[in-house]
């Protein structure tokens, strides 16, 4: 069967040797088993992320995203542009929406794009999508379930959807307060989805850098809630969430005498393991807090 083709926008953190290298590593097995072909957008640039606002301003950030869209449109015509990073996805999707809604914005954007000899047409039906959308809408839970060779039996996972994977767009048909798709994916691979209060809470995002105390307070609540509800690990669709929640646990322990050591994984790593991926293929070796249960399953 022919693979489904997508333009792929990895984003800065998902590059080799970057903070979400483990995330992108796990895409291999997952996409392979599910018949997904990701075609990287040539010479893509950073989306500007939300945090770019202070210095960047509105149109420059718009133009950054428009350039990626314009390249994809030109080089990978007709393909939906997919990202694994919610911030990247949000940047693209907001750009698509606003360029459609505001003709002036589109004119201005294309004026700037002339500098790189590009024009954003926005005439095709290609959409900006998050990887989870592809899995849920194009592949489906049943197909994911069917690809499982090593069910994650007995693993209790707190699905952490966070912010930008959920708001303002989120996954069609899901609620902002209690989206269920991540839980359903967790269940599809045979693990147990743990209900807890912090599923859509904020980890502080980029303010983890600038307002560490305030952000770590949020992170602590997330991790503790997962513990309180019996989770073995957290799974998320967002590199920034993953990094913040994983990396700062040691900091929090140091400051508050807590003993947090909750592995934080990507959904794609769960899928990869369940689909038979090795520790390396699933990027499990990329964890600061190793997910031993998963490594055990992957190592079998």
């Amino acid at each position, binding site marked *: 069967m022919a693979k489904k083709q997508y333009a792929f926008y990895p984003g800065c953190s998902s590059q080799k040797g970057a903070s979400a290298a483990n995330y992108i590593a796990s895409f291999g097995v997952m996409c392979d088993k599910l018949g997904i072909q990701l075609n990287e957008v040539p010479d893509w640039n950073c989306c500007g992320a939300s945090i770019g606002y202070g210095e960047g301003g509105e149109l420059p950030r718009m133009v950054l995203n428009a350039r990626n869209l314009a390249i994809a449109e030109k080089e990978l015509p007709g393909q939906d542009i997919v990202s694994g990073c919610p911030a990247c996805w949000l940047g693209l999707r907001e750009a698509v929406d606003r360029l459609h809604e505001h003709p002036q914005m589109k004119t201005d954007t294309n004026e700037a794009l002339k500098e790189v000899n590009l024009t954003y047409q926005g005439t095709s039906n290609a959409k900006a999508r998050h990887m989870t959308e592809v899995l849920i809408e194009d592949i489906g839970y049943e197909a994911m379930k069917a690809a499982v060779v090593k069910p994650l039996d007995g693993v209790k996972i707190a699905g952490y959807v966070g912010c930008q994977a959920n708001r303002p767009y989120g996954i069609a048909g899901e*609620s*902002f*307060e*209690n989206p269920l798709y991540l839980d359903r994916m967790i269940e599809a691979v045979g693990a147990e989805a743990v209900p807890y*209060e912090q599923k859509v809470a904020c980890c502080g995002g980029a303010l983890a850098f600038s307002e560490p105390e305030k952000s770590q307070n949020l992170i602590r609540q997330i991790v503790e809630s997962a513990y309180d509800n019996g989770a073995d690990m957290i799974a998320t669709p967002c590199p920034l969430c993953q990094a913040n929640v994983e990396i700062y646990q040691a900091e929090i322990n140091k400051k508050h005498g807590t003993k947090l050591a909750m592995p934080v994984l990507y959904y794609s790593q769960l899928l990869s393991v369940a689909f038979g991926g090795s520790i390396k293929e699933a990027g499990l070796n990329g964890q600061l807090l190793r997910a031993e249960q998963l490594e055990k399953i992957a190592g079998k």
Partner: protein
Amino acid sequence: MTASIATGQTILVVGGGISGMTAALEAAECGKRVILVEKTPSLGGRTAQLYRYFPKMCYPSCGMEINLKRIKGNPNVRVMTMTEVTAVSGSRGNYAVTLKVSPRYVTENCTACGECGKAVTSEVADTFNYGLSKVKAAYLPNAMAYPQRYVIDPSIAGTAEGEAAKAACKYSAVDLGMKEDTVQLNVGTVVWATGWRPYDANKIQPYGYDRFANVITSVEFERLCDPHGPTGGKILRPGDGKEAKNIAFIQCAGSRDENHLPHCSRICCMASLKQTQYVREAYGEGENAGKSTIYYIDIRAIDRFEDFYQMVQKDPTVSFVKSKVAKIVENKENGNPILHGVDTEGYHRYDTEHDLVVLAVGMEPEVTGVKLPDDIILDSSNFIEGSKDGGMFGAGAASSPLDVNRAVQSATAASLKAIQVIHKTASTEAA
């Protein structure tokens, strides 16, 4: 199929709530022939499910009794319950209407003696109590139900339970062989008094109606406070059956919200103000007093309702917070909802625990069992403005979010508009 039973001089009123009953009666008491169709087994609509009215704190059943008396005594009104309009064709002065009549499985022989109910054991959700309680599958819809006739739920129609109900009836009133019927009639004009429904609270996700047992809607709260309701009038919260004394009322639950209902539902402020007085009456003012907190954006107690608002403002058991509550979380220890938000009058952050939260849910046009013809003109919130041919009218809450008093005015006006159509038709026929 039943043949035509009406003419172009007949007014069809769709919906047997207070607006429909009013529209039908005002015309009938002018000597006009009216057919009043109601989709449920009894008249009264949503007002019958209210405990009391604001601002007089009087009882809906009081006016209902008069209206029923008017209907019982007026040969010009023909009431058809369990009936829906499925199609309307034709134009002003001459409409062909198709009605679907669902089986009640109980005939006019019924004396409401109650023996069938005793013979049946299975229960169904009591829609009169918004599903907060159950009722026998052979039941009288409510104490004042008109027609005063039992209903057998379709779920037991073909079962041994159904047979038991039939056997228990000494008056051969149970007919399990009843089938859905279609009726065709010609009428001159149609008044759509199809009413409203409470906005689906599940859609207001931050408030967790679907997740927290002790978050309920304002219409459910009416049933809780009604001595004829599921708790005998005691304010017992659904989560654990405990008495709720510290109650939050959240205004604009769905209303004035472009994510939900863009319009203001008009009634909710007054309804919550009224409901604080239920709490007050239940617990008094002293040591044992209850506590009501209203979270609001604007208190829309317009015109003479202002008096009521001022009275409640002076009530020491009631406080007001100008704030749209941001979200509710549940205290896992005790099941109490905790409200998070900011009082915008001066910027005060709160996270307040209550025993029970009542969402003042908005009004939207009822659509279940309502099939409006294409000719109907709707406003941006789907309330009925009229019809293109000028021969059909909205009345009451089907035409706008209205309180009962205004709904009755609207229905009375709609009744005259219908008579104008009939008059024109009659003049044409005479000519």
